[in-house]
């Protein structure tokens, strides 16, 4: 971490905008505004070919929005230090579209996650994603709880 980095007010909003405008609404165009062109996403939940570069991952929100079109993503807690933003969030949604190749169940789900962003030059340069996919599979009844 670069502890001495001074974020601008616009940079401090980047995490929240990633959630509200990109992940929550599926605004693919805004991805170019929020992420550096060669931004890297680190996550066990994203296929490696999709993880490198905004061009590759800009459509990722539809992985969730396709399955949960009414989904709401809400930030619960944010910490900012140096060039890092950490956000603890949760989402609610109804499974009315196909998810991971499975037909819709009509069930509502609630999932928690944490995202950590590295910011510089006005854009997100790196994003580390963790979320409780297991809880979603349990709520959909795919995996026993």
């Amino acid at each position, binding site marked *: *971490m670069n*502890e001495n980095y001074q974020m601008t007010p616009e940079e401090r909003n980047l995490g929240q905008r990633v959630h509200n405008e990109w992940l929550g609404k599926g605004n693919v165009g805004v991805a170019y505004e929020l992420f550096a062109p060669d931004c890297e996403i680190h996550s*066990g939940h994203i296929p490696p070919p999709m993880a490198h570069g905004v061009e590759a991952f800009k459509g990722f929100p539809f992985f969730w929005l396709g399955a949960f079109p009414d989904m709401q993503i809400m930030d619960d807690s944010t910490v900012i230090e140096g060039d890092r*933003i*950490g956000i603890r969030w949760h989402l609610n949604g109804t499974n009315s579209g196909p998810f991971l190749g499975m037909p819709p169940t009509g069930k509502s789900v609630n999932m928690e996650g*944490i995202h*950590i962003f590295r910011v510089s030059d006005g854009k997100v340069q790196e994003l580390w994603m963790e979320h409780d996919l297991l809880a979603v599979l349990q709520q959909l009844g795919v995996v026993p709880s």
Partner: protein
Amino acid sequence: MTESQNKQVYRRFVEEVINRGNIDVIPELYHPDYVDHTAPPGAPHEGSVYDQIAQIPKMFRGAFPDVHFVIEDMIEEGDWVATRVTGYAQHLGRPFMGVDPAGQHVVWSSEGFFRIQDGKIIEHYGQPDLPGLREQIATTPEPGSLDENRAVVTRYVYEVNMQNYDAFDEFVDPDFIDHNPIPGQQPGIPGLKDAYRQFSNAMPDVWFTFEDLIAEGDLVFGRGVIEGTHKGDFMGIPATNKTMHWTGTRLFRVKNGKVTEGWINFDLLGLMQQMGVIPSPPAPPPPDTPPPHLMGAPSTIEANHKLMEDFVEQLWNQGKLEWAEQYFHPEASSPNAPGLPPGATGTNFIVQMMRSAFPDFHMEITHMAASEDRVAARFVETGTHNGEFFGIAPTGKHVEFTEIGILRIADGKIVESWYDVDMLGLMGQLGVGG
């Protein structure tokens, strides 16, 4: 830049509770009003808050005895610290998420939010990549691979722990050779089953936990700790009802998915001392602060073989103490001998003690296996007792005994080492204790 107090609290939790399993420090690090918002399924709700906190590292280390977290990121604002870690472990202990242990190396990430008040953790949200972890431990190894050999040895010990000796036919070769049989042990699988039954009659709850496996070629070395309650006759010693803790290191040869040969060196002397049949000499106390977990670049398998060969020849056989000065990190530790001074000082103390008691001391490597950061070897050691040894005046007797040793290497230096010596066998040959 010095780390803030709140970050230091989180770092102590990782380094002391997770990486070392020291649950005694939990009250120093956790607030009595602690709330875990993401306790894993099955987490206990009984006992004090500290007992409940302790269950999570206990469960984790029970499945992954060598678990080690590396802190990748800490972001602090107000009283919250957001964290990201990478976990490294081997699945050598108990089942996890419904998957039996099979010795896999696993790497996973985890993120968390910790709120710290008055220097203690009071709230926590966690996001470990459990599906990613489960996928790695549930992978079936390729037939004939080192991973398969690790899985066979892990299963062997797990089924022994479960006292499910009928499963032996699936992973023990009918012509299995036990190089350390108990007196009167019959050959092959029937003799092996009988030996374990005798052992579990003496200690019905006995449990062997591997803390590390090193596989190369058809050999697998496994370093472990054993715990059991002495409830029945053991080597003629009647039940003491004491719970014993001792160390043991095993070596197996694995061919075509089955163990074909086995060796073990374990701390029988320490066990006898705990049973009260052999007096315990006073041991130096462990240091107040635990030794650092030294990390560094891995080496090559060939270089690690060479290091072990030089360790034996230069240091032990020729007594060149400067070899240890050069190849032991100054803060290197021996976890099984926590009172020994760190670095070359502690090692050279033992070398000098052995070489003055047995001036013609000689050790030979009989088996060796290495990975990129570990090298394990079994030794046969000989010497003539012409000097004082643990207060025993010279007897002039010729002794021969075995040992298994493991060195961990970082940046080309030995940073940790473990030894299981047949000390009881050695003492017996000198005419004491046996």
